[in-house]
């Protein structure tokens, strides 16, 4: 007898969670690099003379900021590509990257606040960089709320893609905010004109942490994208099952 529809067993979401060799390899790499980042931040990097040990938050806060920008840049690229090609995988990548980016932005805001309290004497300040970063956070909360509230998947993907493209405009504004407006935030010490304004040991600890958080971002997005694609397959199977029952 002929099988008209793919069997449910052909959809294997379990394969999405580190079950295959590349996935497992990436997960191990993420764990190792995060361990190295912890070592570099807490033990290898020298103690900053003025701020003391609390300055070590820098080795998490800055990489979280970098990976957040990366995540939303990926949302921008995948969203633009989705509007051009309408390939569901591009939408899945955009959605996954937005979710992971929002997670990283949340951690960036929290670590920033915990660093600001002992150094600036306040948990929060409405200065340009913090305000534009909070705006970025709200943009992608809105993005995910839209995804959750519009039932028509194709329509939700299209609307979200527009937000994903427009939202990315905030990234260069955040980056330049310390130059354009008065801010409690210092100007970039890594991308300073004339080279990084920090000792080599601090810079290497930062680079190790940057690599670790970037690997973690890649792993989480891959994982989330696979889950999203498996969910789409299941939706399709469920729809076909209902059609056959009707």
């Amino acid at each position, binding site marked *: *007898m*002929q*099988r*008209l*529809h*793919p*069997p*449910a*067993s052909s*959809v294997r*979401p*379990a394969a*999405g*969670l580190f079950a295959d060799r590349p996935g497992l390899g990436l997960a191990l790499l993420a764990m190792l690099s995060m361990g190295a980042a*912890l070592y570099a931040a807490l033990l290898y990097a020298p103690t900053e003379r003025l*701020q*003391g*040990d*609390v300055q*070590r*938050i820098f080795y*998490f*806060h800055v990489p*979280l900021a970098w990976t957040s920008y990366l995540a939303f840049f990926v949302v921008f690229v995948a969203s633009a590509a989705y509007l051009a090609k309408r390939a569901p995988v591009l939408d899945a990548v955009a959605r996954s990257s937005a979710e992971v980016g929002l*997670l990283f932005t*949340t*951690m960036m805001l*929290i*670590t920033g606040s*915990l*660093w600001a*309290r*002992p150094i600036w004497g306040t948990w929060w300040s409405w200065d340009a960089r913090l305000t534009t970063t909070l705006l970025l956070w709200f943009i992608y909360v809105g993005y995910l709320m839209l995804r959750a509230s519009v039932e028509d998947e194709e329509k939700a993907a299209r609307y979200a893609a527009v937000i994903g493209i427009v939202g990315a405009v905030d990234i260069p504004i955040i980056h330049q905010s310390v130059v354009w407006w008065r801010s409690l935030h210092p100007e970039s010490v890594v991308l300073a004109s004339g080279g990084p304004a920090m000792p080599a040991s601090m810079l290497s600890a930062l680079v190790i942490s940057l690599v670790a958080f970037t690997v*973690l971002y890649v792993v*989480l997005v891959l*994982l*989330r994208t696979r*889950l999203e694609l*498996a*969910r789409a397959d*299941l939706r399709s*199977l*469920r729809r*076909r*099952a209902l059609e*056959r*029952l009707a």
Partner: protein
Amino acid sequence: MDGNLIFLFAALAIVWVIIVGYLVVLGGRLSALQRELDTLKRQDTWTDDDA
């Protein structure tokens, strides 16, 4: 001992709790998908075997 050390450890703890929490949430979503898949597997409507 640096009196501000508590802020450093709070930041570290929150970062790790959020990352591990997110992995747990993803695992939960996977379990939900797997349950739905098992339900679909039990239905014979996928094939013409029923026909």
